[in-house]
């Protein structure tokens, strides 16, 4: 295992442990409502949107079509695996047809 990969994994493990154990330790002082709580609840969605948007914009028509196919597949099936498969299949054929 490369040392920087090990370092990254140990670092991730350390901050995640700190967050989990920290929540329990400071439970009595942690706000259950208000700004900080609302902020923490909004983080996962915002991070995912920040991951998806630049990747979609960086693509071309084939990727945009596949994005649409993925969204439709997920809304219909509510299934992560099915949505991923739909996206991959769509991008494969769209690239073939559009030559992207």
């Amino acid at each position, binding site marked *: 295992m490369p040392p920087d*990969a090990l370092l990254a994994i140990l670092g991730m493990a350390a901050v995640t442990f700190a967050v989990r154990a920290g929540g329990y330790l400071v439970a009595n002082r*942690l706000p259950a409502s208000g*700004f900080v709580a609302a902020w*923490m609840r*909004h983080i996962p969605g915002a991070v995912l949107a*920040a991951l998806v*948007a630049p990747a979609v914009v960086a693509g071309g028509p084939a990727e945009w079509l596949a994005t649409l196919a993925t969204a439709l597949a997920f809304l219909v099936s509510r299934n992560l695996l099915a949505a991923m498969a739909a996206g991959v299949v769509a991008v494969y054929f769209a690239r073939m047809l559009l030559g992207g």
Partner: protein
Amino acid sequence: MDAITTHTGRRADQFLLGARMFIPLAISVGAYGLVWGVLARQSGLGLAEVGLMGALVFAGASQFVALEMWSLDALPVGAIVFATLIVNLRLMLMTATLRPLLGRLPAWQAALATHFVTDETWAMTMAEMARGRGALAYLMGAGSLCFLSWLIATLTGHVLGSAVDDPTRYGLDFAFTATFLALLLGMWRGKADLVPWLVAALAAIATARLVPGHWHVIVGGLAGSLVGAVIETRRERSNAA
């Protein structure tokens, strides 16, 4: 039967109950882990790294984000660790609400027990507590099954991923975007999510243009979530007034 054996018996029952109730969720954790394992191989992680990260970090959303930032030539260790912290901050709120279950343990044992707290095990245990039940053993039972299914699925995904040599040729490079999009859509809770997500998306696109590396994930995530919190607290205040 003395008091101690009854107590241990009840604890074993709670452990098994937690594990049994988790079975349907274990299937979805398994599917999610399988996808992660395949993508991990694409990102250049080895089998040992997959196992180590799954066991020590054990937090799916942050592991997906880390994969996206993973690069073999120059691993952005600082950015990955920081992004993990940001994505996992919500776990703090979860373990805080479980304090009634953990409070009776010595602090170090309780701290170790929180490792089994994930979105899924937390939601299940909270539902149980809301019904006036819920026990530490229940959380541990659900957590153990969650942990096992995550590890087995991610390792399996990594092994199966070897069947694919050149991911781009089969459109598999798009699997990342597709997975993140599906995860995002699954998080939709209503119109209140629209503005924070748009802010996150626009901030990320702008940052990706201007700053090299993967800082757009952190900038977009922070911008979107802060805007979401501002809107939500403003609305609560005007409702209260």
